């Protein structure tokens, strides 16, 4: 950065010293006193930004109390990335986000759980910019970052909830370790039943924490507090999808709760399931297996009753009769199981797009009781135009008439010109 440019032009001495006059650096020859160069910019703008970035990384690491390991690796990474052509000539915003992304990558590689949301919040960076920079960083530098394990995040997430006895009424306060423990069990259950894959982590964590809080003390006063109010009490922001995740989680708990023998007569719905959550969690392994086995048995009975052979056309026919028989059965677990079965058999019937190569229809497999919610409630998609692929050869004759359709007549052109002229005149 600060290099004297060769020997002194006056006397040829190479003894050039750096001196500053009124904080402006100058290079002065020691022998003859001539000023070799002055007013050199000591650092270029990009170098300055580089330093800024490094500083930002350091402060981030300090705030989050990372080990020196992570700090070092993120700094090294930042140096590498900053001078990579992809990032050298980009907007300041991107360079700022780059610092955060380097920290994120370093955390991931060192198995430290943290979300991108946290870092962008701390940096006050735009989430979208962070995303773009992160993907570019990974791609350009060919980094491998193992994804964050949600179970590790749950503890820090619970800690962020303000539920100490001092900050809220006794009835609502809760010990964070207990909260985190129950929440991680619920999270495991959610993961097992396809509620976690492909979803944003934070709303799931919030929903799970709320459920855990409810179930630890399912008294009426707590049960009356909604998710949004709970987050207000705990002074934590509510992510929008959290309520949907909560509903999905409660549905899963209801399905499982129906397997508990002492709840046979009880009406299990989303509101009341919090009371039994503790028991459900305790026996979740057995309940899961039981529920799935039962579901499969019921499904197979249906299969045997409804039709003998499973051919393509018949599968569609099976749809309505299956539904009917199920609606009639007032069996346990039928309520929610119904929806699944009905919907999944419908979806299996509407196999619109794929071309099945094998001429004989494969026996359809029993759909699982627990499916990712996107499969449970398929969007009523407009029937994709199963385009009877136009038998097009690519080199056919193109009719003049067809092309003329796309060309304006001279009168139209004239009219358009006149209209445009009037518009420009008036404006």
């Amino acid at each position: 950065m600060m290099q004297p440019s060769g020997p002194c032009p006056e006397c040829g001495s190479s003894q050039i010293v750096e001196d500053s006059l009124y904080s402006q650096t100058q290079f002065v020859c020691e022998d003859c006193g001539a000023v070799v160069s002055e007013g050199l910019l000591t650092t270029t703008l990009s170098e300055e930004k580089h330093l800024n970035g490094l500083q930002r990384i350091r402060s981030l690491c300090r705030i989050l109390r990372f080990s020196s390991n992570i700090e070092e690796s993120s700094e090294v990474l930042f140096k590498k990335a900053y001078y990579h052509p992809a990032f050298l000539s980009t907007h300041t915003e991107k360079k700022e986000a780059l610092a955060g992304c380097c920290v994120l990558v370093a955390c991931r590689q060192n198995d430290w759980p943290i979300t991108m949301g946290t870092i962008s919040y701390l940096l006050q960076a735009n989430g979208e910019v962070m995303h773009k920079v992160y993907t570019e960083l990974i791609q350009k530098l060919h980094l491998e970052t193992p994804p964050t394990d949600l179970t590790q995040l749950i503890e820090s997430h619970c800690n962020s909830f303000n539920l100490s006895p001092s900050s809220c009424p006794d009835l609502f306060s809760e010990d964070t370790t207990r909260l985190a423990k129950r929440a991680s069990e619920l999270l495991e259950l959610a993961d097992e039943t396809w509620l976690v894959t492909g979803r944003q982590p934070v709303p799931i964590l919030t929903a799970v924490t709320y459920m855990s809080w409810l179930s630890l003390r399912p008294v009426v006063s707590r049960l009356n507090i909604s998710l949004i109010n709970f987050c207000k009490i705990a002074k934590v922001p509510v992510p929008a999808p959290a309520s949907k995740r909560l509903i999905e989680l409660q549905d899963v708990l209801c399905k499982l709760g129906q397997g508990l023998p002492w709840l046979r007569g009880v009406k299990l719905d989303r509101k009341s399931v919090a009371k039994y959550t503790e028991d459900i969690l305790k026996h979740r392994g057995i309940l899961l297996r039981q529920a799935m086995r039962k579901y499969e048995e019921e499904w197979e009975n249906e299969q045997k009753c409804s039709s003998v052979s499973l051919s393509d056309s018949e599968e569609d026919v099976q749809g309505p009769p299956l539904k009917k028989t199920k609606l009639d059965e007032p069996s346990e677990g039928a309520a929610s199981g119904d929806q699944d079965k009905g919907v999944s058999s419908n979806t299996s019937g509407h196999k619109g797009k794929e071309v099945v190569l094998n001429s004989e229809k494969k026996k359809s497999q029993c759909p699982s009781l627990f499916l990712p919610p996107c499969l449970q409630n398929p969007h009523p998609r407009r029937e994709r135009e199963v385009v009877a692929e136009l038998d097009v050869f690519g080199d056919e004759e193109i009719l003049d008439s067809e092309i003329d359709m796309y060309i304006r007549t001279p009168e139209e052109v004239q009219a358009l010109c006149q209209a445009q002229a009037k518009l420009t005149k008036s404006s």
Partner: protein
Amino acid sequence: MDGESSLESYFDQSIVGENSQCLYTPAIDFEGDLSIRSPLHSSTFISAPVEQNKALTEDFSVVDLSFLPDELSVQDEPLRDGAEQQESDVRDSGFVCMATPGEQIPSESSMALPGASPFCPLPMTPMTPMTPMTPVSESSGIVPQLQNIVSTVNLACSLDLKSIALRARNAEYNPKRFAAVIMRIREPRTTALIFSSGKMVCTGAKSEEQSRLAARKYARVVQKLGFPAKFLDFKIQNMVGSCDVRFPIRLEGLVLTHQQFSSYEPELFPGLIYRMVKPRIVLLIFVSGKVVLTGAKERSEIYEAFENIYPILKGFKKV
């Protein structure tokens, strides 16, 4: 639960039927145990070069053996027939017969595969009950549908975009936003970007032939508007296909075993981005089982990529 149901489903599956490969379905979940080694590893057979020294999936039999050299297929033919026969006879004892590549060997596959292939020439009673296998050569039975083709063509003459926008009905031109005319035709339903240099990009077609026909129609329109347009260097730049494997997929598991190819960031995007090396295709894999394949220059690349990924995905199917 898992053990019983897998046996039941084994009975249900016809041999030819369940499209593909053998299903090794132990009672343990995949996520739990990543380091099971097959008990039937025969030393006389070449085990596949495991490119990643990572944990092997439980689902050994469901492997893409495309990387194996061609000679092996000859060796295996008689075995396969023998195995198939025996499959039909012996139903209770699950036995392992290694799937053979058969006709399904793409030239080389540098794709890392989830498991070494324990070659087992003869059916033997294994220590753990397994469902019988159908040869790997049977395709998945699912054909990806092409959704979009992007192609470029050179009209070889400079164009006056303002005049085109004025005289064509189906054109829009907003120089402040984008420096090209956006033209659309109804049949085949496509959109073209026409630049003043004479280069054109045509998007939206569902097949190569449709793309070519559409590009020719655009060129004809430009010709009729008075420009000496030619039709040079028509080239398909990108093809996008999609399909559905019909079962949910554990993306977290997939990213763990195929870390160097996959990128799964639920905070950024709900799907897993799998960059296959051979053929060079990017796949977007979603939890619902839908797969989008893109980056192909030829239709065969899309099919090949799907046939490569299908056994891997099947390994993550929870039975």
